[in-house]
Every structure is written in structure tokens, then in C-alpha cells.
């Protein structure tokens, strides 16, 4: 990479240079493998440094530019037939919003210096361990415990499930209970390196979507960390969780919006090519209506996502807006997927069309970062209900 091809070298907001840089992102997405080589080459493009302020060593591009980049990557992957990259971009986003962003907001100078440069450079992959078997939406019922040791540190025990990036992560941000009373002050967050004795990662959980994302169970058996591993201080776990979720809910679906755009283009091409009853199916009103509907779903998703990113750049992103964005884009994603499937008919069952994966990815989007029901609850509270 030359300096001129990095967003660090220019103001990325809507400039020709930014558009040129996005071409590089699109090309990367077309060939990147969903493994650590792809992770590092994406990081070399500054994908993981985009929203981080220049004063912190990042590209300082802001949230809107970051979303545009991940949208472009998602679209580029689909148009190149790199169908499994959608989930890989989701995994990169999980690293970005649920691990790196809380580190930025809550980390001490020492904590940020220890991890942030390598996280932005793609040398350290982050994973967020919050969910447990008995603590999904009801996160406050988590059973993972951290107790103080005699040597000014903490000892962690528990099992985390559905930890995105766990199979490859170098650093885990783990939520644990540090006191027994059932209130939000009882949670704390810890930065736990993969190399910590007692930390083990199970084999990758088999999931049908998002493709390319890898998730696993993480077990903590008498894992000892120092006092400096506590992020935000004792009792700040809920605040860390809320910060991670606010950003994750707002932006985790940026790659999916790109997938939507790419799949719409692919399906339009399919409708032009495929003939029935002697003429292209694109000439039938029923097919055209489905594609127009899909275009409406895409536009609605793009508009809300980008408006939310713009509000975040103005430091005006609240929990309700983040939840609204997640719920809205997820609904549009599912609606578009179903409309496009109808255009393919029986061919929608064939993996090469990309439709089965799209539908699985869309289905998954209803559940990660909080279910639709949780988003609805948060939005309702934001309305004062």
C-alpha cells in the first residue's frame, strides 16, 4: 500500500480520493480469503483503523466512511462471487465494534498502547465474550465469575458461547460477575489474551450463517489476569457492554447492506438473462415488481444505516437509534432476500446463486447483537414508553 491509497492521507468524506480508495476495497473483497491472510490484507487497507481517531493512530475517517467501506466490501464480494466473505466482514465488524471500540472508550493509556496498534494492523484479532448458555438476552444472569486474587489480580471461571472470532482470536474481552448482588454494578470487563493459562477455545460451532464468520465456545478455568486487565474499572462491565452494543447494533449490518446491493445487481442480471415463454423474465410485471420492491428495501436500509453513521460522527448516536438501525436493516435484509429468492424460483435452492446463503445470513441478522425483541424493547424505551 502506498500512503496515497490510504484514507489516512486525505479527508475521506465524499472525495474523489475516497471513491478511488473504495475501488481498492472492492478489489480486495473480490479475492480475499476468509482467513487470517484476508484479515491482515484488509487491515493493510486500513479497514480496521478507519473509525479510530488519528490521535490514536487510526485513519480518522469516521463512522460514515467506515460504513461505506464495509458496504463496498460486501457488494464487491458478492459481485465477484466471493459469497463467503459476507460473514467474514461481519466477523471483522464484530472485532471492530465489540472489542476495539470499547478498548478505545474505556482503556487506559497502557491498555490502548498494549493492544490497539496491533488490532488496527490486523495482528491481533479481538472477540467479545458476553453470551452464555443461560444468559443471552438476559445477560445479567451470567454465571462467569471473576474473584480477586491475593496478588492484585483476578481469577476468572466460566463458559462463554457464540463468541464470534473465538477460533482465531488473540484477545478476548470477557464480561464476568465480580460481585454477587444482582445489579448492573456487579459486572466487570476483562482483557484476556488467548495465551492465558486456563483459557481454552472449543471447536468452531457449526452455523449456517453468516458464512465465513467463525464462532466457538470459550472456557475459562482459573484464568488469572492482572489488575490492569480490568477494562473501565471494577463494576464497569455493563457500561462496556452498552458501549459495545451501541456501536455493534448501529454498524454491524454495514457489510450486509453491501451484500443486499450486490445480490440485487446479480438478480437483475439473472432476470435479464433467463427466458421463459419466449422472453426474458425481466419483462414480466410480476418479476419487475419483485425487483423494484428489493430496490426499495435496499434504499431504506442504506438510508437508515448512513443517517445513523452520520449521527454517530456528530456524537449523537444513542441506544435507541442504534437498536432502531439494527432492527430496521435486519428487516429490510430479510425482506430483500425473500423477494430476490422469488425471482430465481427453484434455482433459489442452488448455492451457486448465492440465495441460500443470503437467506441464512439475513436470518442470522435477526438474532446477533440482540434479538428483534430486544431491539424493540430498547426503541420503545427511547420513545418514553
Amino acid at each position, binding site marked *: 500500500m502506498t500512503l496515497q491509497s490510504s484514507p489516512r492521507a486525505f479527508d475521506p468524506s465524499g472525495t474523489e480520493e475516497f471513491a478511488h480508495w473504495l475501488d481498492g476495497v472492492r478489489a480486495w473483497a473480490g479475492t480475499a480469503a476468509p482467513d487470517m491472510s484476508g484479515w491482515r490484507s484488509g487491515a493493510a487497507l486500513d479497514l480496521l483503523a478507519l473509525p479510530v481517531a488519528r490521535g490514536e493512530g487510526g485513519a480518522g475517517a469516521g463512522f460514515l466512511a467506515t460504513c461505506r467501506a464495509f458496504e463496498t466490501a460486501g457488494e464487491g464480494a458478492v459481485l465477484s462471487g466471493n459469497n463467503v466473505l459476507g460473514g467474514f466482514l461481519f466477523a471483522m465488524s464484530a472485532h471492530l465494534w465489540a472489542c476495539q471500540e470499547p478498548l478505545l472508550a474505556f482503556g487506559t493509556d497502557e491498555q490502548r498502547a498494549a493492544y490497539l496498534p496491533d488490532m488496527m494492523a490486523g495482528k491481533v484479532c479481538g472477540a467479545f465474550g458476553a453470551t452464555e448458555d443461560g444468559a443471552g438476552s438476559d445477560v445479567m444472569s451470567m454465571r462467569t465469575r471473576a474473584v480477586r486474587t491475593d496478588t492484585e489480580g483476578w481469577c476468572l471461571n466460566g463458559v462463554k458461547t457464540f463468541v464470534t472470532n473465538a477460533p482465531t482470536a488473540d484477545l478476548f474481552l470477557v464480561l464476568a460477575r465480580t460481585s454477587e448482588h444482582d445489579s*448492573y454494578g456487579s459486572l466487570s470487563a476483562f482483557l484476556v489474551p488467548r495465551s492465558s493459562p486456563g483459557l481454552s477455545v472449543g471447536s468452531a460451532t457449526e452455523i449456517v450463517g453468516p458464512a465465513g464468520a467463525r464462532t466457538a465456545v470459550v472456557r475459562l478455568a482459573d484464568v488469572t489476569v492482572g489488575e490492569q486487565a480490568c477494562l473501565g474499572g471494577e463494576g464497569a462491565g455493563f457500561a462496556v457492554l452498552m458501549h459495545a452494543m451501541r456501536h455493534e447494533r448501529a454498524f454491524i449490518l454495514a457489510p450486509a447492506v453491501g451484500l443486499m446491493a450486490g445480490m440485487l445487481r446479480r438478480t437483475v442480471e439473472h432476470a435479464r438473462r433467463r427466458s421463459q415463454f419466449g422472453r426474458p423474465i425481466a419483462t414480466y410485471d410480476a418479476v419487475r415488481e419483485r425487483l423494484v420492491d428489493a430496490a426499495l428495501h435496499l434504499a431504506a436500509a442504506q438510508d437508515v444505516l448512513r443517517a445513523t453513521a452520520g449521527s454517530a460522527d456528530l456524537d449523537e448516536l444513542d441506544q435507541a437509534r442504534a437498536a432502531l438501525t439494527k432492527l430496521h436493516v435486519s428487516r429490510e435484509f430479510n425482506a430483500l432476500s425473500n423477494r430476490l429468492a422469488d425471482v430465481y424460483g427453484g434455482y433459489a435452492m442452488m448455492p451457486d446463486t448465492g440465495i441460500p446463503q443470503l437467506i441464512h445470513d439475513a436470518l442470522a441478522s435477526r438474532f446477533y447483537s440482540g434479538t428483534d425483541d430486544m431491539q424493540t424493547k430498547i426503541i420503545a424505551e427511547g420513545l418514553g414508553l
Partner: protein
Amino acid sequence: MTVDDGVLTVIREAVHKAAPAFDGDDETQLITQQVLDSLAVLKVASRLENQLGVPIRDAELLPRNFASISAMRAFLATKGC
């Protein structure tokens, strides 16, 4: 005795809205006595933001800032309220 400049009233209303059964005073420990759980704290924070026009950052959603009505008043004072 803290003089109510209007902010205290907003805080008390926010706490009562989030925990209608609350019958303590300004010094009651809302977190350790489980008057406010995690979602209730979010409700209180959201209401304070809306009513007072002051943004509350995630990093400020700490137990010490919401420990009691008096603690919230002191916290908001640091934000110019």
C-alpha cells in the same frame, strides 16, 4: 439538605418512572439495594438525557454515578447541570 434547582426533581421523577415502587430518599442506595437493575439504569439515563438535554456517555454509565439520587445530582453537576 440539597437545594432543589429543578434538576433534583427531574432525577427523582426519572427514578420513580423506572422504579415505580421506590419509596426511599435521595440517599437510598439504588444499585446495591437493587432498586434499579441494568435496564432501569438505561431508562433513567435516557430520561435524564431527554429532560436535561445533556448527553450521558456509555463510559459514564458507572454504578458510582447512579448509586443514589444524590450521586446522580453530583454526577450531573460535573456536566454543568
